[in-house]
């Protein structure tokens, strides 16, 4: 059976005699599929990380979208193992750009006599609809825990928050986090340690109901 499987894998490979075009199409297709899987696996976490830094849903979505585009434009040919740290590196740069722009915009707007409210979007009725979840009390508890964590994370310096989220939400190890943050592993350990210390000082042991 194993022999059949081996043969099947050999015969299922694209024929080289059809020319490079066919081979290239197959390669591009498989790369596109791999990228799709990768982006699908990171998009929600990336959104949460961006949201924790920017505290604005639309800005967070923009940052994630820009990071996706940048990755596919510039690094699609890289090895899939490199995509994760590269993607988060791009995302962090994008978040920093948006924060800078927001600071500048805030300074300019402060001089204007008639400035708009910061968020005047109409609320989406679907997003505002109550959740059909059967256990709202448990949900409420997790919501409160998340709000407390988000508030504590927001008070952290950018690099500490970054290190904490990349390690605990995305599950990157120290080396990958260092690659994503563009710093040494020693710096990551320092940022991470300080983040944990600061969070512990604010949240205690952060007990949650299982």
């Amino acid at each position, binding site marked *: 059976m194993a022999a059949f499987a081996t043969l099947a894998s050999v015969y299922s490979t694209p024929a080289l005699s059809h020319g490079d075009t066919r081979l290239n199409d197959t390669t*591009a297709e498989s790369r596109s599929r791999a990228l799709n899987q990768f982006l699908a696996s990171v998009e929600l976490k990336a959104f949460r990380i961006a949201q924790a830094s920017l505290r604005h849903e639309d800005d967070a979505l923009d940052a994630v979208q820009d990071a*996706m585009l940048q990755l596919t434009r510039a690094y*699609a040919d890289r090895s899939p193992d490199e995509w994760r740290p590269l993607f988060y590196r791009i995302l962090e740069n994008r978040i920093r750009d948006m924060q800078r722009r927001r600071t500048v915009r805030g300074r300019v707007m402060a001089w204007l006599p008639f400035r708009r409210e910061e968020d005047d979007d109409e609320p989406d009725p679907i997003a505002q609809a109550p959740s059909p979840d059967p256990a709202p009390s448990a949900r409420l508890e997790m919501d409160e825990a998340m709000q407390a964590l988000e508030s504590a994370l927001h008070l952290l310096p950018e690099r500490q928050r970054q290190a904490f989220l990349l390690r605990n939400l995305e599950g990157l190890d120290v080396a990958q986090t260092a690659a994503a943050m563009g710093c040494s592993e020693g710096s990551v350990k320092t940022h991470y340690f300080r983040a944990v210390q600061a969070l512990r000082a604010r949240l205690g*042991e952060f007990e949650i109901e299982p």
Partner: protein
Amino acid sequence: MSQNEEIASKLELNARVVLHDSLTRIDARTRSRLNQARQRALAEVQKPRWTLRHGLKLMPITGAVAAALVAALLFFNHAPRPLLAPTESGQPLEVLDLLADDDGLSLMEDYDHSFYEWAAAEGDSASEAPPEASG
């Protein structure tokens, strides 16, 4: 393991649970927008890229365009010169204006041969006459 590390591990563990739980509660609208963003990004991969192969494929076309440009340059460099030579001011159209003007034509019609012949003879005799002695 120290007491601090143990507490930190518990904190990290609980934070992970809360953070991952928050992912499951991202609303459908946001998920849809993220999905659209992903599809847009993937469309970038499908776009044809400029490679050496493309360059080689386009070589005959590029060569033809270059040859046409060279031919056009040669043709315009050897184009016949204008029939009217430029005047001192460099504008041959001035001559055309003179000819087309009604006054110019009337001058041509009233051309007085005798006056011009006399003027020419006077000029010649003046240049041939010996200079007058001064004093």
